[in-house]
């Protein structure tokens, strides 16, 4: 007897989705819970965690931002293998602003976000006209080459890096700045992706000729997506520079490229929420697994392969489906 899986919207989804007069608290909760849980979580987590896990939370936020930045690009058909480029450029920019010119940390972070975004966009502009694969190749190469260049030419402190950079005035500012930006990025860009503008970006990835045929300059749109994504990544780097009070070669490390991709793939690409969820799973996991050292990266590599092949939709889509629909097996002839 053959069976197939049938998926049916839960009653509560049908009621609260199409009818705009909500009739019970339950329905209101059903609609708002997916939004409230992360927001409340972001607000409460810094308060309940101890010192050590607060630090972990900061890197969760940073990797979540990098993963969001990766996902925005992936939506527009650009697969970056070098988020470290965005991160590192932002980090060095902030380092330079503060080390050489003594800018206030908050101003330096803001300026580095924009400057890093612009610089990365300029770097990658020539590749935008080519197939996606070139984008992957170039983004993989550039950060690794930049490390060598800094090492060899000894600019910006060379192997020593820029040390003694001013920290933000308190850890609470650090924590809540990170959480605020993460919340804004998550919900803001989710809205952007769902808007008509986001639809055009997806359309460029899907069927660029039909977009060109609407008189839309696809390269200009891709450039915009690249700039937005690069700014998000550069912010993460600039922020970390002021947290660690240091900007040096490690900011171009492969970790900053791989972990965000792993987070987005494990969480589920295309939703941004998946990328954030992935970061919230993988970063603490790698803290717990600190003992096994290098084997972590092996695990990330395997995660990537397994999720891409076996569960390409990622955890978030899976959870979302379970939340909205129930499934049952029905017989077929």
């Amino acid at each position: 007897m053959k069976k197939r899986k049938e998926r049916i919207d839960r009653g509560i989804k049908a009621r609260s989705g199409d009818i705009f007069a909500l009739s019970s608290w339950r329905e209101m909760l059903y609609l708002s819970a997916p939004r409230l849980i992360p927001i409340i979580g972001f607000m409460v987590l810094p308060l309940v965690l101890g010192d050590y896990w607060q630090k972990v939370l900061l890197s969760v936020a940073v990797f979540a931002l990098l993963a969001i930045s990766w996902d925005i690009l992936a939506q527009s058909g650009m697969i970056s293998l070098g988020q470290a480029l965005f991160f590192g450029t932002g980090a060095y920019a902030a380092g330079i602003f503060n080390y050489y010119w003594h800018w206030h940390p908050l101003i330096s972070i803001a300026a580095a976000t924009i400057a890093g975004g612009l610089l990365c966009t300029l770097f990658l502009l020539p590749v935008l006209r080519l197939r996606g694969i070139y984008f992957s190749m170039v983004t993989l190469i550039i950060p690794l080459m930049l490390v060598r260049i800094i090492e060899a030419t000894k600019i910006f402190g060379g192997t020593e890096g820029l040390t003694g950079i001013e920290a933000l005035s308190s850890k609470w500012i650090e924590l809540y700045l990170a959480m605020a930006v993460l919340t804004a990025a998550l919900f803001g860009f989710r809205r952007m992706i769902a808007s008509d503008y986001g639809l055009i970006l997806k359309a460029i990835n899907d069927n660029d000729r039909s977009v060109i045929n609407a008189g839309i300059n696809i390269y200009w749109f891709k450039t915009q997506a690249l700039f937005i994504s690069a700014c998000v990544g550069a912010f993460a780097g600039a922020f970390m520079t002021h947290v660690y009070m240091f900007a040096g070669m490690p900011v171009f490390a492969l970790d900053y490229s791989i972990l965000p991709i792993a987070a987005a793939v494990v969480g589920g690409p295309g939703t941004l929420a998946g990328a954030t969820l992935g970061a919230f799973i993988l970063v603490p996991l790698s803290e717990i697994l600190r003992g096994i050292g290098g084997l972590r990266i092996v695990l990330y590599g395997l995660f990537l392969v397994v999720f891409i092949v076996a569960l390409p939709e990622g955890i978030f889509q899976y959870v979302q489906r379970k939340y909205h629909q129930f499934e049952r097996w029905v017989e077929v002839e």
Partner: protein
Amino acid sequence: MFLGTIVYALVNSVILALMAIGFNLTFGISGVANFAYGALYIFSAYASWMLMNLLHIPYLPAAVISILLTTLLGALMYRFVLLRIRGQVLSEVIATFGIGLAILELFRYLGFVGFEYTLPVFIDRSFFIAGTYVDMQRIIIVIAGVLIVVALWIFTHHTAVGLAFRGIAQDERTALSLGIDSDWIATLSVSFGAGLAALAATIIIPLGSISPGEGYDVLIKALAVCIIGGLGSTGGVIVASFIIGFAERFTDSYIGSHWTMIVSLAAILIVLIVKPSGLFGKQKELEERI
């Protein structure tokens, strides 16, 4: 010094071409960008080392076995991973990158780092050419490089499998309708690419030592050469290897060794700005897809 630099630049160029040619072959035929390429290169080197030092097999059989093992690994990678995500560029890139990462970092974790991890040179002699000493291994590299390119040309132009390769590369659908199994050819293309990586490793590694970091280096160099030469073009790979090879050696000799990476990066950026599809790239932006 000038002539000596030329000799070393020539060797350097051939090394680059050897490193890139497998990656390029796979991409040119099946459109798979194998980001596990550097890892396969290192895998074969470690395999040879283990066969020699743990199982005490002589060098030549050890090298042959490890090349075959790497070729097989490439085929398995296609059959069990890539076949399931065929045609989805995003997934292919991430999956091959993930595999490469897992292989390289596993070796690093297992502690395969150090100067003892090296392969012996084929013949330990050196010659005095053009005012510099050149060791036998470098001469072997140049000869092997030329032989491999010629062999590849004969293979793709005069054998059935090679012609099928070219058929798929030109038009997958037409090739399919002529009874060429594109999955099988793609499997072969990935495994041949892996085999070429292993062959390159066997010839080149004796000049230095084996390390996981070298795997990333090889991938970067292969990508750089392919970007400059144009993806999928064998002629482009050779020309680009010579451009980078000579540029690197000459900056090394006359400006300073730490400038070599800048020269490569500058070369990539200039080529991308002037001719985004690479010197010999067949990518014609929109026209290609109509």
